[in-house]
C-alpha cells in the first residue's frame, strides 16, 4: 500500500517561478526523503529530513516536515526547465523497517 500521497498530482509552471509540492503520510516515521525521477528512469536522491528536524535546505531545495500533521513539503526555488521531472516522497517507519514507502508522485513541468 502507498503511505505517502503527493499533492498536486501535476504542476506546470514557468521558468523562474517557485514550485511547491506536498506529501502526506499515515504512520510515524524516522525519516522522510524526496526523490526525483526523469522520464521513468532511476530515482535521484534529493534530500533526507529526520523526524526531529523541521526544515532542511540544499541548494534551491527547501524541505519542511510537520510530524504532528504527518506532512512534508518540497519547495524548488527559481525553477529551471531541467527541473522537469516527477518528484516522490518516501518514508520509512519507526519500527526500524528499512523499506521505503512511496507516494504516486507529483509530475512537475517547467516551461521555458
Amino acid at each position, binding site marked *: 500500500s502507498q503511505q505517502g500521497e503527493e499533492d498536486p498530482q501535476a504542476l506546470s509552471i514557468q521558468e523562474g517561478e517557485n514550485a511547491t509540492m506536498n506529501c502526506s503520510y499515515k504512520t510515524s516515521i524516522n525519516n522522510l*526523503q524526496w526523490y526525483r525521477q526523469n522520464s*521513468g*528512469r*532511476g*530515482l535521484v536522491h534529493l534530500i533526507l529530513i529526520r523526524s526531529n528536524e523541521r526544515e532542511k535546505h540544499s541548494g534551491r531545495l527547501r524541505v519542511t516536515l510537520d510530524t504532528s500533521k504527518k506532512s512534508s513539503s518540497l519547495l524548488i526555488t527559481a525553477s529551471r526547465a531541467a527541473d522537469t521531472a516527477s518528484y516522490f516522497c518516501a518514508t520509512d517507519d519507526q519500527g526500524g523497517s*528499512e*523499506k*521505503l514507502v512511496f*507516494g*504516486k508522485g507529483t509530475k512537475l513541468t517547467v516551461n521555458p
Partner: protein
Amino acid sequence: DAGVTQSPTHLIKTRGQQVTLRCSPKSGHDTVSWYQQALGQGPQFIFQYYEEEERQRGNFPDRFSGHQFPNYSSELNVNALLLGDSALYLCASSFTGTTKTQYFGPGTRLLVL
C-alpha cells in the same frame, strides 16, 4: 566512484517465462533493495537483502525471489511471468547503520507479452 548499476536496461519476455535481473550496489554499500514501479505509480518495495539473507519482504508473491552474493551484488528472479509484471524494476543500495539513504540504479524495464 560507480553508482548503482543494473542490467539489462530493457527486456521483453512472454507470459510464463522466467526472468533474472541484476544489480551491483554503490561502492561501500552492503544492503540491496528491489522495487517494482508500474506506469504512473510510485515504486513498491519487493524485498531487501543484507548479508546474503532476505531481511524484509513486501507484499509480493513467491514467484518473486532474490539472491545476494558475497560481493553484495544481487539478483531478482521472477518466475511464471504475468502480463501484470510489466514494470520498471529498480534496485537501490544503502549502507546499514547509517542514515538509511537509498541510492537507486537506472532500472530495468520489463515488458511481458
